[in-house]
C-alpha cells in the first residue's frame, strides 16, 4: 500500500515535499497507521514523528491522515482509502516532518488556569461529591491534549493568539463544572472578552475530529450558557 508522507527537515530541505513509501499490508490486516509508520522508519530512519502509548491515551501522535486530524495509533489502515496521505497537524508550526510545535497550544491551555481551585478549609478526608455531581465532568476529564481539535478549528486559524481554542475551553469547562471548584466567577470573568470564547463560530470541526469522541463544541456552549446565567 502506498503512503504519501509530508517531509521537511529544515537543516537539509529548502521547502517541504511529499515522499511516497510502499508498505506490505496483508488484505485482512488490522494494522494501525502508527505501525506502518514504525515500519517505514525502520527503512528510512530520517522520518520524524512522535509516539508513546500506542493506544490513544497519551496524545503524542496526532496528525492529518487523508485530510482529517486523527491519532495514528487508533486509525486502522483498513478504514482508509489508499493512497494514505499523512501530513502534520494543520496550521501548527512544523519542527520537522510530522513533528509540530506545541508552544502556543500549551500557552492557550495554561491561560484557563487548568487546575482545581478551592479556598475553603481543607477537610481531613476527601471532599464529598455526589455521583450526579461527578457525572457532570464525564467527557470533560478525558481530553488527552493531542491538539487534533484546536489544529482543525477555523476560529483558531484566524485568531490563534486570542481565541483559546476548543482544547483549552474544554478544560476551562471541566473546572467550571466540578462541584469542588470555587473559582467559577473568576473563570467566567477571564473569558468575557470578545475573543477567548466568543470567536467560536460553532463550526464544530473540533467535535468531528476528536479521537476520544469528546464534544468541545458542547463545552463551549456550556461556558456561554453559564455566562448568560451569570449576566441575568
Amino acid at each position: 500500500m502506498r503512503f504519501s508522507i509530508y517531509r521537511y527537515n529544515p537543516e537539509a530541505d529548502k521547502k517541504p515535499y511529499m515522499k511516497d513509501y510502499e508498505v506490505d499490508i496483508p488484505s485482512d490486516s488490522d494494522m494501525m497507521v502508527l505501525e506502518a509508520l514504525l515500519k517505514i522508519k525502520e527503512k528510512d530512519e530520517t522520518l520524524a514523528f512522535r509516539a508513546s502509548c500506542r493506544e490513544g491515551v497519551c496524545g503524542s501522535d496526532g496528525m492529518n491522515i487523508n485530510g482529517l486530524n486523527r491519532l495514528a495509533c487508533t486509525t486502522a489502515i483498513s478504514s482508509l482509502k489508499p493512497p494514505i496521505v499523512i501530513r502534520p497537524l494543520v496550521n501548527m508550526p512544523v519542527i520537522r516532518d510530522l513533528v509540530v510545535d506545541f508552544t502556543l497550544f500549551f500557552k492557550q491551555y495554561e491561560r484557563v488556569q487548568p487546575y482545581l481551585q478551592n479556598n475553603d478549609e481543607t477537610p481531613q478526608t476527601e471532599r464529598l461529591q455526589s455521583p450526579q455531581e461527578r457525572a457532570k465532568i464525564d467527557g470533560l476529564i478525558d481530553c488527552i491534549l493531542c491538539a487534533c481539535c484546536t489544529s482543525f478549528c477555523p476560529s483558531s486559524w484566524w485568531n490563534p493568539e486570542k481565541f483559546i481554542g476548543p482544547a483549552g475551553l474544554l478544560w476551562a469547562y471541566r473546572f467550571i463544572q466540578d462541584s469542588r471548584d470555587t473559582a467559577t466567577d473568576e473563570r467566567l470573568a477571564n473569558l468575557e472578552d470578545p475573543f477567548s470564547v466568543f470567536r467560536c463560530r460553532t463550526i464544530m470541526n473540533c467535535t468531528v475530529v476528536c479521537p476520544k469522541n469528546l464534544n468541545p463544541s458542547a463545552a463551549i456552549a456550556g461556558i456561554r450558557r453559564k455566562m448568560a446565567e451569570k449576566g441575568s
Partner: protein
Amino acid sequence: MKINTYTFDIIVIGAGGAGMTTSLYLANSGLNVAVLSKVYPMRSHTVSAQGGIAAALGNMHEDDWRWHMYDTVKGSDYLGDQDSIEYMCQNAPEMMYEIEHIGMPFSRTENGKIWQRAFGGQTINYGQGYAHRTCAAADRTGHALLHTLYQNNVKAKTHFFNEWFSIDLVRNAKKNITGVVAIHIATGEIAFFNAKITIFATGGAGRIYESTTNALINTGDGLGMALRAGIPVQDIEMWQFHPTGIPGIGILITEGVRGEGGYLVNKNGERFMERYAPHAKDLASRDVVSRAIAKEFRAGNGFKKDGIDYVKLKLDHLGEEVINSHLPGIRELAKTFAHVDPIKDPIPVTPTCHYMMGGIPTNKHGQVITISEREEDQIVEGFYAIGECASVSVHGANRLGSNSLLDLLVFGRSAGMHAADAIKHDLPLHHSSEEEIKAALIRLERWNTTDKGEDYNEIRHAMQKTMQEDFGVFRTEKYMVEGVKKIEELRSRLEHAALTDRSQIFNTARIQALELDNLMEVAYVTSIACLARQESRGAHSREDYPDRDDKNWLKHLLCFANGKIKYRAVNMKPTTVKPFEPTKRVY
C-alpha cells in the same frame, strides 16, 4: 561541541506520576527544581494505568492498612521489604485525600466518597475475602492522575525541560553525582544539568520484551544510566506478566474487569481459574493467573490465531450499564484493538510483559543504595530513585495490581520530603570539570562518529525475541544459558552499530539508538539475574527449581553492569507491627 551548564538545587529525570509527585512537593517547598522529560509530561506511561490506586480508606467496608500490608507482603512472595511496605500502606489513605484535594476526579460512592473496586490479591482481615480497596476514576485512573499532577505543577510553576533526553550521569573525581548530561531533542543542544540532588523517575523497561503492555518510551533509561555509573540493580529477574493483554499488540485490559466480576474461560468454555486458585479464582495474584493461563496453553486448552495462544475474558454478564460506567475505556480499547464489543462478546487475552518489580535499590526515602565490597548497604549521596525505576522494595517478586500508582505517589512524596530537608540543611553543590562532563557524553559521541555498521533495529528485534523466548513466564537453565550467550553477543554487536541520520533537529533515530543502549543493559542484567536465582518465587518461575527456597534465596539479588552479583537481606523489620513470616502462598 558547545556544552551549556544549567544549575538547580534538584533535578528530576522523568515526568510521570513519580517525577511529578516529587517535583510538585519540591516546587511547593520553594526549591529551585527542574524536571527533564524526553516527552511532554502527559505522554508519560502513567497515563496508561487503568484500574486504580490501593488504599485502605474503608469507604466500601471496614478496612485496615495492616490488611493491605499483609496482602502486599504475601503478594511479593515475601521478597518485599516490610519497612517500605508498612510505610506505603500506612500512608496510602492520606495520599488519596491529598490528590483528591488537588483535583483528582475519582469516581464516587452514593454518599459522595471515593469509590473503590476489588482487585487481585487484595483481601480483608488477612485473607478472609475480597477487599474493595482500589480507588478509581472509572478505568482511566492513570490518565486522571497524571493530568491532575501536571495541572498542579503548572500551578506551582515547576520548571519543565520538555523533550530533553538524559544521556548519562556525571560524576566528579570523588565519585559524587553532580547531575546529568542531556540533549534537547528539538534542537540538538547538549547541556550539563548541575544539581545538588538528582532524582530518577524514569519508569520501566518493558520494551526489552517482544510483547508488552508498555509504551514505546519504556526503555529503562534510568537503569542504563545507573548501571553505567557503577550502581547495581536489584531483583531485576522479577518481571510481571499481566494475565490480560490483547494478543499481538499487547494493549492492557485492566484487572478491574475481573474486579467487577469478569472471568477467564478456555476454549472449552471452562472457568479454569477455579482449578488453580479455588478461593480467589480470577482475582488471584497476577503471577498465579499468568502461569495458569500458560499451563492451559500447554494443555491445549487455549485458542490460537496467527501463531499466538490466548484465552478469553468474559464480561458481557456484567451488563451494559456497569461496563459503560466503570469500564468505558476497556470497551473502547476492546473495540479498537480486539474488534469485539465486550457488552456482547468476550475479549481475547494473553499474558503480556507489564511491569518491572526490580530496579535501582533505594530505602524508603528514595535514597539510592549500593553495596560495598564488604556487602554493606551504602547510600549514594545526592542520588534518589522513585517509581518503577526504583526497587524500594514494595513489590518484591510480584506486584499487586493498584500498588504501582500508590508506590509512585507515596515514595514520590517521601523522596521530595527527604530531598527538601537535605537542601535546607545546606547540602553542597559539587561541580564537574569539562573532562568529567565529556566522559558522560562518550556514548553519544560513539553514535555520532560511527560511519559504518549494523542497523540497530535488527539488534533490537533480536534482543526482544530472545528475551521473550528464553526469559518469559517459565524459565529453564538450558534455554537461559543459550539466552545469556545471545544477549551478550547482541550487546557487543550494538557497540558497533551505526546511525545514518546525523541531523540536529528532532533526530528521533538518534534517540532510539540511545534508548536501545539502555534496553540492552537492562536485558543483559535481567538475563544474568534470571539464570542466577535458582528457585521459583513470585513472577520468577523456574521449571528446574519449581519451589520457593527460603533457606537459600530469601534475599535480594543485585546485579552490576559487568554481570557481577551480590546479595542484600530482605527487610523483615516493620516498626509498628509484627513482621509477616514467610508461609506457603496459596490463593
